[in-house]
């Protein structure tokens, strides 16, 4: 059951609201708050947060594995001297919605659970930090959440997501029931499941869930915009391209004063999709910096983008910088933009195009100056990102909570498949299978073990 020990788990949530603002704050609270924050936040001085006292803060980087997400400040509070009365870390990062959500997601991936509505306040109350009369308001919050969840479940009743989750659930329940019947009724002729067939059953479910999981990011691109980096050596026309894109359909260009002091994100609607063009000037991306294309931070910036527009200058021969850029973007989603068509000869164009096409599959010859080729770019972007293949009516994970459930199911499935491959006995595998079922049943509101037993009696002719 999903509520086992929920009170003792470490929770995290964005505490500043999902409105673009200067500074965003993600809060982690619970026994493992500091430990989890340490896996996500690297202080500049390399001294882990766990070695810091309460009421101190440190400047550093928020990262996801090797990839840096943002720089920010971590404030450490130690129990009971915190808002919730538990160990708390508040990670202040840049206030962009995407950055905050990424930061939250990394925390969840490292073992925090998404906080429920009002849960920080609830904990504060339970730990004696709030007065008695505040309890009423806490219950109000929980009620609101509960009602909200019920409404959401109702709305999703005929929804594509629920259908898809149910199909996986049905599959896994069937497999778990089969294993259960096979184990609980050894004397009946319940067909034995071979490890191979179990692996393929579980991989089938894994595939569906994985595609849902992946689509979460694609879906988010549609909802929140495609983060796009424009890169290239100096004077290839990046700024001209940026200006061209910004001018395009001027009326719907919005400025999101992003995160910071420095980064300004510009949202541009192109071909029905919002492109979030990061003018990274503030983060020291100057023309000079681009010369050193291999520089660490620049590569990371590109890696965190959904799309890279790599700009080349057709009017000049390709040089080492261009090759370095091509190498850097290799394996990423990018469009090679061969710019300054208007200033190049036919021979230059075909030579440049031939060269680039050796390394790039999506190549566009255009002129940012005259605007020639802009329409093709508009068509290329959704194609390159696979957005054109997305069926708007298809199942889509709607929020971090659902994503977390799917992630837990995927982890348990991976563990089960690994156990099967290693030749671990099926009793352990069936436990993994039920572990995978539980979070899915959280999404649909049922209980795993009861469902399995129901199925045993429905599907198998067993008895004494």
């Amino acid at each position: 059951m999903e509520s086992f020990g929920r009170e003792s788990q470490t929770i995290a949530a964005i505490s500043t609201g999902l409105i673009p603002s200067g500074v965003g704050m993600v809060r982690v609270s619970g026994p493992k708050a500091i430990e989890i924050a340490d896996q996500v936040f690297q202080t500049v001085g390399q001294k882990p947060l766990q070695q810091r006292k309460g009421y101190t803060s440190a400047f550093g980087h928020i990262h996801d594995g090797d990839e840096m997400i943002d720089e920010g400040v971590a404030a450490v509070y130690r129990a009971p001297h915190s808002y919730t009365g538990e160990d708390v870390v508040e990670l202040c990062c840049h206030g962009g919605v995407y950055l905050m959500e990424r930061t939250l997601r990394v925390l969840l991936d490292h073992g925090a659970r998404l906080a429920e509505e009002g849960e920080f306040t609830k904990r504060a109350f339970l730990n004696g930090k709030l007065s008695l009369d505040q309890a009423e308001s806490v219950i109000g919050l929980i009620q609101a959440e509960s009602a909200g969840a019920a409404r959401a479940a109702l709305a999703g009743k005929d929804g594509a997501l629920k259908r898809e989750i149910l199909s996986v659930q049905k599959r896994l329940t069937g497999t778990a029931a089969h294993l259960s019947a096979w184990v609980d009724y050894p004397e009946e002729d319940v067909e034995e499941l071979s490890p191979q067939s179990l692996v393929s059953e579980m991989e089938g479910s894994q595939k569906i869930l994985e595609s849902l999981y992946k689509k979460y990011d694609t879906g988010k691109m549609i909802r929140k915009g495609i983060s796009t980096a424009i890169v290239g050596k100096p004077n290839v026309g990046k700024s001209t391209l940026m200006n061209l894109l910004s001018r395009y359909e001027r009326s719907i260009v919005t400025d999101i004063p992003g995160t910071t002091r420095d980064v300004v994100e510009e949202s541009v609607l192109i071909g029905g999709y919002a492109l979030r063009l990061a003018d990274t000037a503030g983060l020291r991306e100057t023309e000079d910096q681009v010369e050193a294309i291999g520089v660490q931070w620049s590569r990371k910036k590109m890696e965190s983008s959904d799309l890279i527009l790599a700009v080349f200058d057709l009017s000049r021969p390709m040089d080492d910088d261009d090759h370095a850029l091509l190498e850097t973007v290799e394996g990423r989603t990018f469009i090679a933009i061969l710019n300054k068509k208007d200033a190049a000869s036919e021979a230059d164009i075909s030579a440049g195009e031939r060269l680039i096409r050796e390394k790039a599959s999506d190549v566009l010859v255009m002129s940012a100056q005259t605007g020639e080729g802009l329409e093709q770019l508009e068509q290329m972007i959704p194609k390159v990102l696979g957005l054109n293949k997305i069926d708007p009516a298809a199942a889509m994970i709607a929020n971090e909570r659902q994503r977390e459930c799917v992630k837990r199911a995927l982890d348990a499935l991976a563990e089960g498949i690994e156990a099967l491959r290693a030749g671990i006995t099926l009793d352990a595998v069936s436990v993994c299978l039920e572990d995978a079922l539980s979070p899915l049943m959280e999404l649909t509101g049922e209980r795993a073990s009861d469902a399995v037993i129901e199925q045993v009696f429905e599907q198998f002719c067993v008895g004494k």
Partner: protein
Amino acid sequence: MIGAGHAGVEAALAASRLGAHTILFTISLDGIANMPCNPSIGGTAKGHLVREIDALGGQMGLAADATYLQSRMLNRGKGPAVHSLRVQSDRVQYHIYMKHILEQAPNLTIKQAEVTEIRVDSTNHVSQIVTKLEAVYDVKTVIIATGTYLKGRVYVGEVSYESGPDSMQAATSLSESLRKLGITLRRFKTGTPARARRSSIDFSQLEVQEGDEEIIPFSFMTEGEMKNQVVCHIAYTNEETHRVILANLDRSPLYSGKIEGIGPRYCPSIEDKVVRFSEKPRHQAFVEPMGLDTEEMYLQGLSSSLPLDVQEALYRTIKGFEQIELMRNAYAIEYDCCDPLELKPSLEFKAVTGLYGAGQFNGTSGYEEAAAQGLVAGINAARQVQGKEPVLFPRSGSYIGTLIDDLVTKGCSDPYRMMTSRSEYRLILRQDNADLRMTPIGREIGLVGEERWKRFCQKKQAVEREIKRLKQTTIPLSPELNQMLVSRETSPVTAGTKAVELLRRPQIGYQDIHPFDLLAPKLSKEVWEQAEIEIKYEGYIKKQLTQVEQMKKLEIRLLPEKVDYREISGLRLEAQEKLNKVQPLNLGQASRISGVSPADISVLLIWLEQKKRRNTPEEQENKNGH
């Protein structure tokens, strides 16, 4: 103690052994610990229960070891969590053994009498019981374990009559008395196949099913070599069998609607199987001896409530059964049982102080499930008399706890059978470590004697020592070692390797590395096997232990007794109703009630905290005042 079936026997023994003056009532002394269905003990998950009963100091394991005919460890190869012991038992010997144990027990009086009434005092506490012959006994606690006797009614085709199991008398009056006490009664149904004469079966047409070469006893106290004394046989139904059944379905009381009782899903009659699984061309049946000094054979898998002539006809369509002679016919039996949601986890009724329920009366089925509840009810009834707190068994610690928690938290809508899949902690609740889990509890309760305790401590230490040793031991590199590894289809090593690392490979067992483990002490199988499992499944075991720890944090948040949950604002209506009915002991139990959401649990948490804070200043005031 009302009833001397498998629940009643364990309850009476436990209570009397704990020093409570106990009277055991049974309608017939010849029905003590009878097996009116399968002549067998154990099976999947049920075998776990028997081992737990034994480890706590119960009797069933010892009785099964003393009277077995054939023994098999089921599910070998499917993983240690689901290994389950099952024996064929000598039905009459089992009864004789248990009856004799009861007769020798201190503090225990055995009476052949039908209890017809239970009386309570003005505080709704049980005070007296009355028998059919109008004898009145003053009592402090009563345990009801009436099995299928309570308002028992047998059905065979169009014929039905009042009866208990195996042609015993039914208990006809007690139901009325229980209703008056406010206990809800329901009708459940079960059934049993025919018994046939051995010489009328052509065994050459059947498959033989042998027992295990090496027999593992149920009881941790049983020693010495054990040998199988009989074999069982397997037969199959065929199209003709199914045709006979379908042609006569209208004469089945189940299908004509005469039986209203709810039958067990896990134990369908042959007509049920044929109807529900019409695509299956054949169903299995087992032929099992009823004892060494009888020619009666039990026909497992062929239970039926069809008329006698149809029973004979359908059995005779089976290959090997052409000339079969039925000695006892198959029948269905309907009986009164309670709604276990009205019970506390101690198995005491919420409505009546001192009144306990156990066994089939609580809505379960199976001798082992009954015995497990009998043991718990016996322990708690005795403790109540002695003014002690009840012993509660958490579901994370045993199948016994899982069984009781399921019953009192979720209830049951058909007879409840234990299955390994009912436990979310099955990798730690294994049959092989039942003693490690339960014997310390039995010791504390007072049911584990010196000898068992001494043996237990020795085994426990030996296992711990061996695990520690294996973690420190390096197996030196040798061509023979690699030869063995390759022959087990696992990769060879390039240097000396820790014994635990080799053991963690699924293909490698303790016995495989034993020849290379030069300093290995000589250990009994139960010790090294335990060490092997603990090492091999360490990762999974740890994961489950973490889940147990998390669950415990909710279990320690106790809910007060007799709360009106309708008065707690913020709880959803469905949750209020369910909570009011179950009256859970703690938040953990509350969270397992279907219809109680995590949000409701949050509300309860805050409500508890509010209550605590409101009470605290008052208490302090009171203290100051005095």
